[in-house]
């Protein structure tokens, strides 16, 4: 309690020190009251977040999701240590079945490549594309959606039309076109996935902003003379975050699915081993060596499933309205 009061006092002091010079000439005692009040309320969201974290962490499904995802992250991080050398290099006899030789627990493919090394290394590209594409898509979608929802009027009309155009085009067809045009590489695949996934974020953000901008505290912030940027990013965005957080984990999952489908079709980065491309090359041998198709697919399914379980857990924690038990 004492430490909390202490930091609060410190914050107020710092804020007073931050106020530009001319303001100090006034002697009206109420001048900094709103500042003090906003500083006092600054510590509230932290406590609220803790309650949601507790709900999230008592959800067994979400915990399973986190555990498996950590495993995938570890595989991606330690891949060069666990399996040094190029995972695309030939290391053994071709078509060794899983368990046939101790050195290759998951067998080898038609070119004598280690399947386990491929799966462990494949986690890198999947996670990279999933996270980077989501971050890009979220950033762009939030900015567009925030501007449309906050300002309204002709800006809104124009941006909504833009969102509509992107949502009317079939996502995956557009993705194939974009990647084929830009030549496949990890970077172009990431950017292309971000391009097809931002409209959903923008729509969601816009809807949240439209409802929040009418709230009293936004009105209050406006009457205090805060600038648009400050109202958008400091007042509205934090309150619009819960649905966006839930969406982001589902976005990572669908980005991983899109990346795997692209590399399955031969539109992935040709120099990097990925789960989709392993399935694509194993496909020809499905009659004789089905494990080449099945194993990387299981890696995709479990990774995506764990992300979706996390998304579900986040949804239950952040939107209690739609909770399972009701």
């Amino acid at each position, binding site marked *: 309690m004492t430490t909390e009061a202490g930091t609060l006092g410190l914050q107020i002091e710092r804020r007073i020190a931050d106020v530009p010079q001319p303001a100090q000439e006034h002697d009206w005692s109420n001048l900094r009251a709103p500042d003090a009040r906003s500083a006092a309320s600054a510590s509230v969201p932290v406590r609220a977040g803790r309650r949601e974290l507790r709900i999230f962490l008592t959800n067994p499904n979400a915990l399973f999701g986190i555990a498996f995802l950590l495993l995938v992250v570890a595989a991606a991080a330690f891949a060069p240590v666990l399996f040094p050398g190029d995972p695309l290099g030939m290391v053994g006899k071709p078509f060794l079945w899983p368990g046939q030789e101790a050195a290759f627990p998951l067998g080898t493919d038609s070119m004598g490549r280690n399947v386990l090394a491929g799966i462990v290394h494949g986690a890198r590209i999947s996670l990279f594309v999933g996270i980077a594409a989501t971050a890009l898509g979220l950033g762009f979608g939030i900015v567009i959606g925030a501007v449309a929802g906050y300002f309204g009027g002709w800006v809104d009309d124009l941006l909504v039309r833009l969102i509509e155009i992107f949502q009317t085009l079939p*996502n995956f067809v557009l993705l194939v076109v974009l990647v084929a045009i830009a030549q496949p590489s990890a970077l172009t695949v990431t950017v292309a996935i971000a391009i097809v996934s931002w409209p959903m974020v923008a729509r969601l953000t816009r809807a949240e902003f439209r409802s929040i901008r009418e709230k009293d505290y936004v009105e209050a912030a406006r009457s205090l003379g805060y600038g648009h940027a400050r109202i958008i990013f400091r007042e509205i965005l934090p309150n619009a975050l819960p649905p966006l957080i839930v969406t982001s984990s589902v976005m990572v999952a669908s980005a991983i*699915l899109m990346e795997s489908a692209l590399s399955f079709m031969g539109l992935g980065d040709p120099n990097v081993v990925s789960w989709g491309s392993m399935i694509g090359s194993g496909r020809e041998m499905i009659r004789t060596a089905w494990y080449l198709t099945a194993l990387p697919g299981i890696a995709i399914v479990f990774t995506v499933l764990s992300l979706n379980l996390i998304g579900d857990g986040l949804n239950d924690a952040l939107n209690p309205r739609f909770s399972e038990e009701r």
Partner: protein
Amino acid sequence: MTRAGQMGRALRRTLLQAIPTTLGIVILNFFLLQLAPGDAADALAAEAGSATAESMAAIRERFGLDNPVLVQLFDYLNNLAHFSLGFSPRYGVPVAELIGQRLPGTLMLMGTALAIAILIGLTLGAIMATFSGRLPDRLISILSLLFYSIPGFWIGLMLILLFSVALGWLPSGGAGTIGSTRTGLAAFLDTARYMVLPATSLALFYVAIYARLTRAAMLEVKSQDFVRTARAKGVTPFFVTTRHVLRNALIPITTMAGMHIGSMLGGAVVVETVYSWPGLGRLAFEAVMGRDFTVLLGILLLSSLLVIIANAAVDLLHAWLDPRIGAHS
């Protein structure tokens, strides 16, 4: 105003709004494809193995590929205004004819997949909502999440492995027995046999979405007053569920289904690749690879129109499901 008049007005408004969107799509796609390195002449030359500069220039001149970009755009829009999608340099036939050959296959695949997805999704969702919070709900919930996480191409390959390679029950690809002379019911059953696996692979992802959506919507509707009234006046639980709850829950589901037409076409690209199904998705992929941009533009335009039409149909369906919708618009 009469019901039909209202619906007609709503439809006209939707279509009017669709015009600028469609035009935007055409222009956006056009410039997007101009960014691509290489054109149809390059792709043809690369496939032939050799080509003289003269013959490539001749191809370009014949299809207007050497004109300035804005002239090409104007030509394309002019063609569209005359209801022509242009001419494919690669296949040597009008684009409309090419698409016309492939469209029925894809529509059939998508329609079957959508029907499977909605049917199974509604059933699973209704079960989940009825047993909300209990074991069946939890089990189906995990199952649907699993469906949601499986890549379509992979489940397609696994289904081939199980049903064609291991059991030998169903064909592993194609759209019908080659050289088949069957007619009537036999032909239909033959096509159906080829369609089961691709349609199931395409549908699984959407089964998951509709099941979860149905569950949420039914739980929300269940707590409303009119359901209590229906129950109080002695309607049997089965009819409360089907006539009152499910009908209202259908509104969010049909909305989503309309939105999914576009993404299903994307899924069809992958599933058609796995099952060598002769459809639009496969044509789109071939067109990208062959730099056949007139075909690609035609497919993108047509699929956008398909999405717009589907959304208009959903609007009409909503007006029928819930007469309050559209009354004040």
